[in-house]
């Protein structure tokens, strides 16, 4: 195993571990934190199946965003849809045999990479051009967009730029990446373009659980969206904190807040 292979293998495992453990911890936090009151944003469904439909519309069509702002919806939706297709196409590189439906995607995926980058650029421009979006954006919002644009661009270059030499290395890439998943990494191709693309993705994964990227799972835990509107029919709670009912945990009175560690100079 070459030194380079070792470095990138370790990089991969660290990134994946941070991603998986980080996301599991997040999900655990969301699962374990109580929602002590019924707060569905009404009109809300009265059945679990109805909530499923509501959630489906929001996750699959970004319905609420569509109601709120058509422009952001267009950019955001195109981006996510294209990203999903790109992601599925990537399974080619991880899986030993490619399922037929993924192969069929080949035909459209010629464009999806451009859609990803184009839609992100559109979102970036919106942040700069619309006064309200500009006001609320912070540096990391731009950075994230640039970051994913960079991932997309290196991906597109890998595919369409002969000089990059990634296309001809694909069998080795498959062997390396597929091997990572089976804990027998092959030799990493010494292709700078590929290594850049790969590294950016690993960095992105490591950033994911600690940033707004958790929106991908958090949406499922949003009480205004996932609660059933049946508070009269079915009693919700009551909820406990440290063995006491919520209402009995009194607010900290002045005394308990004022406890200071440092001695006062009397």
């Amino acid at each position, binding site marked *: 195993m070459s030194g380079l292979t070792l470095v990138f293998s370790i990089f991969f495992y660290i990134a994946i571990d941070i991603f998986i453990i980080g996301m599991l911890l997040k999900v655990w936090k*969301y699962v374990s*934190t*109580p*929602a*002590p*009151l*019924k*707060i569905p*944003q*009404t*009109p*809300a*469904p009265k059945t679990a199946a109805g909530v499923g439909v509501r959630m489906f519309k*929001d996750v699959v069509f*970004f319905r*609420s*965003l569509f109601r*709120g*702002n058509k422009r*952001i919806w267009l950019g955001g939706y195109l981006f996510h849809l294209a990203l999903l297709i790109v992601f599925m196409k990537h399974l080619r590189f991880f899986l030993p045999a490619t399922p037929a439906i993924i192969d069929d995607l080949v035909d459209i995926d010629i464009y999806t990479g451009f859609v990803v980058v184009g839609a992100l650029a559109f979102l970036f421009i*919106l942040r700069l051009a619309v006064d*309200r*979006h500009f*006001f*609320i*954006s*912070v*540096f*990391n*919002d731009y950075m994230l967009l640039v970051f994913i644009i960079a991932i997309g661009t290196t991906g597109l270059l890998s595919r369409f730029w002969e000089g990059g030499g990634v296309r001809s290395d694909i069998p080795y890439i498959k062997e390396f990446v597929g091997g990572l998943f089976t804990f027998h990494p092959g030799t990493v191709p010494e292709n700078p373009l590929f290594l850049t693309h790969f590294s950016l993705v690993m960095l992105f994964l490591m950033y994911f659980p*600690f940033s*707004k990227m*958790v*929106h991908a799972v*958090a*949406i499922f835990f*949003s*009480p*205004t*969206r996932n609660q059933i*509107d049946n*508070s*009269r029919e079915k*009693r*919700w*709670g*009551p909820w406990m*904190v440290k063995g006491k*009912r919520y*209402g*009995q*945990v*009194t*607010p*900290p*009175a*002045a005394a308990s*807040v*004022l406890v*200071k560690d440092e001695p006062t100079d009397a």
Partner: protein
Amino acid sequence: MAEQAAEKTEFDIVAEAHPNKDFKAPELTGEIATPRVEDGMIVKGVTDAIKPHIAKEAIQEKLDFPGTLVDNWDEAVIRRLGELLERYKSLQVYLDTCVRCGSCTDKCQFYLGTNDPNNMPVARAELLRKVYKRYFTTEGKIFRKLAGAEKLDINLLSDWYAYFHQCSQCRRCSVFCPYGIDTAEISMAAREIMDCIGIGQKYVNEILGKVHDIGNNLGMNPKALAATLESTEEDLEEETGQKIRLPLDEEGAEVLMITPSADFFASPHVESLLGYAKVFHQAGISWTFSSKASEAGNFGMFIGNYTQLEKVASRVRDAIDDIRPKRLIVGECGHAWRVAYSFWNTLIGPFDTLDPNYPAPQHICEFTLDLVERGAIKLDKAANDEFTVTFHDSCNVARGSCMGDRPGGQFTIPRELIKASCNRFVDMEKGTIMEETFCCGGGGGLLTDEILQVRIQGAMPRMQALSRVMESDGVNFMALICAICKAQFTKILPKYGVPMSVAGGVHQLVGRAIDLGAKA
């Protein structure tokens, strides 16, 4: 020495306010324009000095909060925020999730009305999220300002006090957020934290104290309440020639009626009270108010404090135990209905002593419409022929509760009832009603005069939509089902040059139309 005395304390910085009593309402054009974030406002907001009065020590301590700003308030804020994060999934998820997409930025009536970019829902939430990021997230600890994380300081706290009291917790922003982020939850948490470090809001906390001491928001003791009801009964007899009762504390009554205390004498609230009484009278159903639970409102929700929420609600539990009614009905009040419909079962349920054939609690509109549909009472629409009516969906009812057994009943049931009471009804423009309704501008504990400017500005979108139907359809009555809406509009309408009499209750219309003659 003199210099020292002039130095501002931290408390002064938070408390410093410049209420603008002479603020002029914008003109009514019928258009709701989205303001531009002006360059000058990016640095500092324009309404950051418009703040409600801070509660005095005695008021705070009655609610078990520290009396004034505690010394180590910054540590206390972080500690309390940490506790709330463990207790509220909404807070935890919503502080993490926002991608700052911008969808909510033009949805809040307070941004539309004040032009202050800090009143954009996401910007408001970001005031708290900054601190969350800085102290609770890895991203914020590493990237600091770049991630939008910020250290808590007295100026930020001062902004909290201003802007979390320019949010009526109406949940309009949540409708348009891809993740349903509810800024109301965030502003409740922020107010709870501020209460816990000793800077509560005077208007809300004073009222909570009154509820504990006396039993209702208006501080009306049982004797005064009984006297008011009696004299109102006399007025009713004079008006109708019939003995229509307004019973108080009558054990064994079929219905226990919980209504906002403003209904007992404020105008136009009392007109709806007369409406309720006539409905019960005509339907022949025995009912009673309770002096113990002479308040439907629950300001505990506004300050996000679970203990207060539960404590205020528990008065209703006590009243049920005393009076042993079969049914529980709630009068016209927006946030009260949200608390009753969505929270009561959790806080003071189960209601297993009540008749299971009826929903518990039931909204007065559900109750009355059912009687109308069954023919148990008759309404003469012509009695309201002088009115062309529109309906303001109270935000708490629209987005935080339901009526009937189908989603959206909170929109159809009051409208059906209005249509059964009058001949001419028109809805305001789509996008300003039902799920997308604008708040009246006075909800969520904002109904206090030192922030009148913000109330006038927050009412702007509703006023524009109203002026449009007044112009096009001759609307001269806006029916309401919220005590706060009624109080807010009677104050705000004249500021916009609209007669006060345009605001009224749904049961005001019912009360005028009800046929008191032939009993079914």
